[in-house]
C-alpha cells in the first residue's frame, strides 16, 4: 500500500495536535471510533459564542496514517469556519483532498463523524446553558 504525498505530509507534520479542556463551555469534544476497530479520533473545537466561529481545533488519533491525516486535515478545515459551515464538510471532500484509496474511506467517514460529534457536544453545552441565560434576563 502506498500513500499519497498529502497523507505522508499530514502524518509527518500533523497539524493541531493536542487537547483542550473538555469541561470548558465553549469547547466541544468528539470522540469517535473504538480501539477494537483500530481507529479512535478525538477532535475538539473551541467556538466563539458570539459569532459561532470555530476559533481553534485540536485532535489526537489512534489509527493508521490515513486516519491521522484525515483528522489532521479536519482540524485545518474547521478552523475559521462557522459551526454550520463546518457541518457542511463531507467525508468525500477529505477523500478527494488526500487521495484516499477505497479501503481507507472509512477513515474519512470517521473524521466527518468526529466533526459532527464535536459540534454536537458544543451545541448540547449551549442548550443546557441557555435556561440560565434566560433567567438572568
Amino acid at each position, binding site marked *: *500500500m*502506498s*500513500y499519497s504525498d498529502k497523507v*505522508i505530509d499530514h*502524518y509527518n507534520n*500533523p497539524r493541531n*495536535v493536542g*487537547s483542550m479542556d473538555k469541561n470548558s463551555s465553549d469547547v466541544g469534544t468528539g*470522540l*469517535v*471510533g*473504538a*480501539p*477494537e*476497530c*483500530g*481507529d*479512535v*479520533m*478525538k477532535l475538539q473545537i473551541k467556538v466563539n459564542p458570539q459569532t459561532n466561529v470555530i476559533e481553534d481545533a485540536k485532535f*489526537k*488519533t*489512534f*489509527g*493508521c*496514517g*490515513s*486516519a*491521522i491525516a484525515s483528522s489532521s486535515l479536519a482540524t485545518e478545515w474547521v478552523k475559521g469556519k462557522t459551526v454550520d459551515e463546518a457541518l457542511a464538510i463531507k467525508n468525500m471532500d477529505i477523500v478527494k483532498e488526500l487521495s484516499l484509496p477505497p*479501503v481507507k474511506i*472509512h477513515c474519512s467517514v*470517521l473524521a466527518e*463523524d468526529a466533526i459532527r*460529534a464535536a459540534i454536537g457536544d458544543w451545541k448540547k453545552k449551549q442548550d443546557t446553558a441557555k435556561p440560565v441565560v434566560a433567567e438572568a434576563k
Partner: protein
Amino acid sequence: MSTDVKIPQELSKAQHPTPKGVKLPIYMDNHATTPMDPRVLEEMLPFFMEKFGNAASRNHSFGWAAEEGVETARERIAKLVGATTKEIIFTSGATESDNLAIKGVAEMYREKGNHIITAVTEHKAVLDTCKRLEKNGYRVTYLPVQKDGLIDLDDLKRAMDDKTILVTIMFANNEIGVIQPVTEIGKLCRERGVIFHTDATQAVGKVPVDVNKQNIDLASISGHKMYGPKGVGALYVRRKNPRVQLAAIIDGGGHERGMRSGTLNVPGIVGLGKACAVAQEDMPQESCRLAGLRNRLKDRIMNRLDETYINGSMEHRLPGSLNISFAYVEGESLLMGINDIAVSSGSACTSATLEPSYVLKALGAGDDLAHSSIRFGIGRFNTEAEVDYVADRVIETVERLRELSPLYEMAKEGINLKDVKWAGEAH
C-alpha cells in the same frame, strides 16, 4: 498478515542519520520470505542454460544431468529432516504441499473416516483447505490455542474419535513464531493410528526437524522461507510404519511416484536442496546468533517502552522471531513511521479484509492489541547494527505516536479504556 510493505524510494533515503554499517532500507520480514543465499543461486545457475534437461528424459545426457541435480537435492532435503529420499515429493511450494497432504489423505482414507483436526492459528493454506473439505462432507475440529499460542494436548486427545483420519498442526507459526509440541502431537497420533501432517514451512532449516523422532507422517516444506528460491517446495510422505498413501490432486505424467505430476522445476529443486544443505551446516551457530539478536531487539525495545506485550510463548519460539504489541499505537501507522524498515503488522489496516490478525485474536489478547502488533523476522543477513537501528526507530516512532494517541492520553488520566462506551463500536 500483510507482507507487501512497500517502501517508496524517496522515503527510504531517510531523514535520520544512518549508523555506520547499516544500509537502508532494512529487510526484517523474514517470515514472509527470505533473500536468496548466494551459495544457493550459484548452485542453481548451471541448471538454467547448461543442464536444462527434463529430469524425466531417461535416454540422453541432458536428462541425466537434470536428474542428478534433482536427486542430489532430494538427498539433501531428506537428510535435513531425517527422511529417506523416496519420501520427498517436490511441489510448487508449501501451499501446494499443504493441499496435497490434507486433500490427499482425506480422499484416500475416506472409507476409514471423515474427521480432521487442526488449530485456529494455522496458515490459510491449511485452514482454507479444511474449509473446502467441510463443504464436501468432512468434519473438521479447529482446536483453540492457549494464551501462549500453543495447543493444549488434552484438547487434542478429547477431539480425537474413531472417525479421525488426520491431524494437521503446524510446526512453527508464521505470525508469532511459536513452536507447537510436535513430538507429543505425533506420539498421540501414532498411538491412535491417526496420520499426522505438519506445515513445517517456518521451521525447516531454522530448528531441528526429525520426522522419525517426532512421529511426523507428512511435512510441508518451502524453499523461499529458508534462503532458497520461490515457487518450489516439498512434501515429506512417510513410506513405512505406517506407509502413508495420498490421492494426487494434479494428474498427468505420473511424476513423483504418481503423487504430483508435472515436469520438475529442476533449478528450483536444486536451489531448495542447496538451501537445505546450507541450513543444516549453519543451523547450530545461526540459530544461536539469531536468538541473540532477537533478544537484543526485545530487550532494547521493552526496556525503553512501557506497555509493550510479547505475543506468543518466548520459550517455544523460532530463533529470529518476535511479535510485539505496542499499546495505544496502531500498527500500520507505526509501519509508516519506520518506512525504511520492512516488517509487518497484524493490524486490520494492513490486511485486505480490514480484520485484525486471526492468529493474535486467537491468543485472546483483544482486538486492540492485535491492531497494535508488529512482527519482526530477523534472518541470516541481518546484523547487530541493524537490530540496534530498528530498536531506536521503533522506540522513537512509538513515543511520537503515543503523544498523538487519545487512548494513551486517556490511559494516563487513569481512565480504564475497557469501561469506555465507544461510539464507533458498530463500525
